[in-house]
């Protein structure tokens, strides 16, 4: 005959209507921020793994050599490389392959066909042997003036700095959204305490402990936090899938692939729960601190 219920009619408060939407919006932003950070992080890991143990030798036709046979120069450079200790293999990229690499920036316009494209040699090296890249570059310059040796370290270092900055920025956004969610819960809890002051006073009079009253607020906040969190995650997933579809055409060329590992999906799926727990703890602390000031 007696049902489980809340002594405080918190469900009827206006905060019950607006709080899930605010939390949903915050979780939405947090999911997008986290996803971008995780996608960039994965891309850097893939790029780092892909470039480790490789060198790229670029042979540019110099002013004097313009029109000369660049292929012959490239062959000479290849022979120098093959004779270098620590080089495990080389592959000369065809003009078509070099053109394909530049296609995202230059397009397929016929006008670009006449541009003096450099020749590239992909070199696989033994990572256990330390190579003197300056000496190698000097050797190559003798047979192929203007040849450069790129071990990708500088490019990677710059990229990693950029990605780490984006990650920090994303973490800042996540922290900011968490802070706003916390402030929202504090505001809602204080409003609830003010609106239901008479009921709370009555519960006190008849012997309710502060924790008994706080429990009602914290479960209410947990419910609203979960509701808002799931809504926000759902909206963010829709946005991500839409973005993934739009990026599908270009991702293989200039944008990192929009895919996450199972662990990263678990982190995203856990966000509503984390948000709800933060809301619950915030409500509990706020209510207990306020009640402690009552007679």
């Amino acid at each position, binding site marked *: *005959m*007696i*049902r489980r*219920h809340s*002594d405080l*009619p918190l469900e*009827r408060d206006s905060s019950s209507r607006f709080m899930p939407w605010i939390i949903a919006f915050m979780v939405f932003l947090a999911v997008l921020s986290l996803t971008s950070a995780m996608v960039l992080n994965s891309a850097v890991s893939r790029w780092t793994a892909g470039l480790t143990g490789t060198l790229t030798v670029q042979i540019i036709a110099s002013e004097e050599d313009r029109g000369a046979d660049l292929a012959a120069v490239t062959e000479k450079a290849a022979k120098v490389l093959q004779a270098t200790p620590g080089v495990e293999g080389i592959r000369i990229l065809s003009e078509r392959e070099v053109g394909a690499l530049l296609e995202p920036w230059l397009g397929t316009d016929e006008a670009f066909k006449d541009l003096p494209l450099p020749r590239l040699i992909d070199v696989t090296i033994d990572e256990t042997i330390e190579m003197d890249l300056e000496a190698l570059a000097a050797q190559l310059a003798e047979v192929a003036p203007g040849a450069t040796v790129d071990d990708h370290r500088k490019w990677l270092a710059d990229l990693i700095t950029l990605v780490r900055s984006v990650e920090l920025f994303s973490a800042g956004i996540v922290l900011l959204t968490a802070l706003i969610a916390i402030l929202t819960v504090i505001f809602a809890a204080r409003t609830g305490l003010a609106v239901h002051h*008479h*009921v709370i*006073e*009555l*519960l*006190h*009079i*008849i*012997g*309710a*402990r502060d924790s*008994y009253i706080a429990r009602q607020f914290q479960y209410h906040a947990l419910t609203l936090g979960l509701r808002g969190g799931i809504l926000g995650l759902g909206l963010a997933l829709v946005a991500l899938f839409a973005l993934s579809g739009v990026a599908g055409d270009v991702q293989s060329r200039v944008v990192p692939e929009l895919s996450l590992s199972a662990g990263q999906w678990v982190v995203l799926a856990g966000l509503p729960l984390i948000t709800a727990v933060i809301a619950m703890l915030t409500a509990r602390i706020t209510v207990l601190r306020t009640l*402690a000031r009552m*007679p």
Partner: protein
Amino acid sequence: MVSLDPVVRFENVGMRYGRGPEILRDISFALEPGCFYFLTGLSGAGKSSLLRLMYLGHRPSRGLISLFGHDISTVPSVKLPDVRRRIGVVLQDFRLLDHLSALDNVALPLRIAGARSDQINEHVVELLRWVGLEQQLNARPPTLSGGEQQRVAIARAVINRPSLLLADEPTGNIDDKIAMRVLYLFEELNKVGTSVVIATHNESLVNRFDYPQMHLEDGQLHQTSAAQRISA
């Protein structure tokens, strides 16, 4: 062994709201276990405020209050709920929870005290039947008359078999017949050991009983024993 400590003891107690003037001054009295008192005075004399001090709804601005032998100023705040659970309070505005049924309203003190559901159900139904509300168990307060709401409030105050019952104008909204019935209920509780203090401005009702009286006037308390009242 029965404790002989007064249920309530006030020593030079003063009370003010915020920074306002002191509305109760130098209040000193002691209520022995099993006593029955009327607290009288004109409207605004401070009867409700004095009751607030007794049920720990407000801190005194000065003086000493002890309940059940414990100096309240030294009781840790985590222990105060235990003290409050020994006090039943009927508030002037009833303070029923509109979203709960009469049954759930009366069950509130038991639920807060952690009683088992089956015990709660049994006791609450029995008490509501006793105050004549067996047909209104699942009714919500807004659908009840003023008198019915008052009886729900009284049932909620006594469901825990309190050691001290404080009632603020418990007969204010009900007719004389039901008022007498309510007072007889308080008498019955008093007979089983509950100390009772009833604040009222209804002199005619007070005069029908021979209980001692505490009278508030100009923020000060004057006590009249039963014998003095009879001789007067």
